[in-house]
């Protein structure tokens, strides 16, 4: 083998070797999986919000806007009250307030639910910078939240001792755990409790529910408000949980991804959660695959790697949507006869 060729092979094998090494490296997997958890948390909250609203029969594409308002209000609350708990509560309250607009428009006035949702997204997109200008004097981003008043990460006592899992699952902020708890609570509530049954009845057969004495419209309004609460949590995670301040348009389309995850999860909490984890995972993987060689393939151009989350969305939607089961009365206002 001449010198030129041997150099080429050496370069090839070292890149290849590095690629394989990386995939066997435990630290790589710890960082990948804990990043997956963090990235899927806002999606999980928002998608659960979508679940509450849509299972009761109200289409909610306003998740994005509700999240943005939640993110802004949480940052303001954290700065104003100097406490992250107050921040989270402010985020919840503000998102719930805006969600009430959607509830009133869709349930009380029978407005087109897609149009109302879109209107709220546009409204939120303008409102957040406007309030930011009024309260912080800048339209772009809020002041930074200093670490003294920032939400602290939790170390789970026993769990953190377990080698691999402890590193992945411990040292997150409380909101990450809250999201997981909410998923299972919602699942149990929806499946086992009478209210959960009513919730599904209202979305599937409002007439039947009504004849059983369930107040359909009141139920729907409360469900949309619940989705506001969850979107507020999602927003709070972005601005004061994971980040340390509000930045303009910081949701960056996560509300729509959450909606996709909920549809992919067939309007059920646990499958929706796994869909969120999948989207979080592809995003985390995409981040780590940029510029890292893959075994057998070498380095993949970054443009292709960045396509990954979108490709997964397309494949997932094209492959699974056929068998998805939307609530039967989704998008249809209930008019009592």
């Amino acid at each position, binding site marked *: 083998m001449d010198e030129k060729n041997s150099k080429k092979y050496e370069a090839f094998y070292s890149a290849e070797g590095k690629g394989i090494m990386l995939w066997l490296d435990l*630290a*790589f997997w710890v*960082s990948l999986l804990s*990043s997956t958890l*963090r*990235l899927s948390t*806002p999606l999980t909250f928002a998608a659960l919000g979508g679940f509450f609203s849509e299972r009761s029969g109200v289409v909610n594409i306003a998740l994005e806007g509700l999240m943005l308002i939640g993110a802004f209000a949480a940052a303001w609350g954290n700065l104003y009250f100097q406490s992250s708990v107050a921040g989270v509560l402010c985020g919840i309250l503000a998102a719930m307030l805006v969600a009430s607009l959607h509830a009133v428009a869709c349930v*009380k*006035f*029978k407005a087109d639910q897609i149009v109302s949702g879109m209107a709220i997204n546009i409204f939120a*997109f*303008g409102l957040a*910078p406007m309030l*930011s*200008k009024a309260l912080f004097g*800048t*339209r*772009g*981003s809020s002041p*930074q939240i200093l*670490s003294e008043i920032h939400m602290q990460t939790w170390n789970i006592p026993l769990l953190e001792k377990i080698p691999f899992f402890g590193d992945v699952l411990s040292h997150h902020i409380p909101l990450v755990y809250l999201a997981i708890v909410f998923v299972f609570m919602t699942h149990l509530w929806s499946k086992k409790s009478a209210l959960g049954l009513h919730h599904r009845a209202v979305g599937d057969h409002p007439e039947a529910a009504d004849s059983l004495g369930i107040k359909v419209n009141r139920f729907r309004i409360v469900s949309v408000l619940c989705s506001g609460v969850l979107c507020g949590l999602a927003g709070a995670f*972005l601005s004061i949980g*994971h*980040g*340390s*301040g509000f*930045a*303009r*348009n*910081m949701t*960056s*389309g996560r509300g729509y991804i959450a909606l996709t995850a909920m549809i992919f999860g067939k309007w059920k909490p646990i499958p929706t959660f796994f869909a969120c984890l999948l989207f979080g995972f592809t*995003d*985390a993987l995409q*981040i*780590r695959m*940029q*510029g890292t060689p893959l075994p057998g393939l070498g380095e993949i151009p*970054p*443009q292709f790697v*960045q*396509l990954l989350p979108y490709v997964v969305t397309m494949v997932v939607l094209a492959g699974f949507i056929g068998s998805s089961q939307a609530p039967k009365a989704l998008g249809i206002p209930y008019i009592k006869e």
Partner: protein
Amino acid sequence: MLKSLHLFLSLCMLGLLACEKKQSEIENKEKSSQAQQSESTTFKVGLVFDKAGADDKSFNESASRGAKQAQEELGIELKTIEPPDDSAYELSNERFASRGYDLVISVGFIQEEAVQKVAARHPETKFAIIDTTVNLPNVASLMFEEHQGSFLVGMIAAMKSKTATVGFVGGMDIPLIRRFAIAYEAGAKHANPDVKVLTNYAGVTIEAFSDPTKGKELASSQIAQGADVIFAAAGSTGLGVFDAVAEKNIFGIGVDSNQNWIKPGNILTSMLKRVDVAVYETIKEAMNGNFEGGVKRFSLEDKGIDYAIDQYNKDLINQETIDQLEKTKKQIISGELKVPDYYVISKNS
């Protein structure tokens, strides 16, 4: 039920009517004020931001600062627009041009097409666009030699790094940001040939410049791979990068505006792109009748590009480093040292 709907709708209509009346009042007022202004000779400047908005703590904010300085010192009349979406750029530029503004300044490469169209329609109006070129006689294209500054901060990063690993987090994956990335890597390797440079981009859409959540995850992944200095050329996505470096108590490098103050003690320096100077100078020239169309370049030589040393970071960078940087700066200005330029490389390949 129907009754209340009617009530609601009629209230809405009433509201609309009231608005309309106000609108016409405003327009009348505007007309009269315009008439007044055409009598006086106030120089009118319109500034169109890109989607990140005027207060992005970075690129747009710098342009805004320059225009405000001109407003205070030169007594111009300044109006600004923040277009809400991509389709509004042309409209915003058109609005200024058709209302008789003397100079319209458009911030950001994304407005290239809009300015191209509007400037062709209004040959009597002067235009300036930042970060891209529009080939019309009434358009001044303000270009920055970002690669020179990136090279210098790359050197700072490599000299500060204890792990011999430095990171780069870019916003949207576009030639402009690659220009930063390539020169940063070259600068780091110039200071320390064995340094490892990790490069990541936040995305392929304009949202990649406003996603601090993604920025923090990108930075965390680089930190997990050993990076201890990370350069963020990513708009407000960079705020997330600074969060990550502050949590681990390592270093970030800011971009465009001086960002040293955002996380004092954890921001090593900022690569300054003096958009404010370019905007101010362009307004001044246009006001004095010295406006010239064509490409204008701002570089290390005229301090249009620089690195920031202030009270927040003066203890982080030692004199030895500064001496070496100044030496390299002179070499770049004199042409002795060639910094790789992505614009040139991509054209040739």
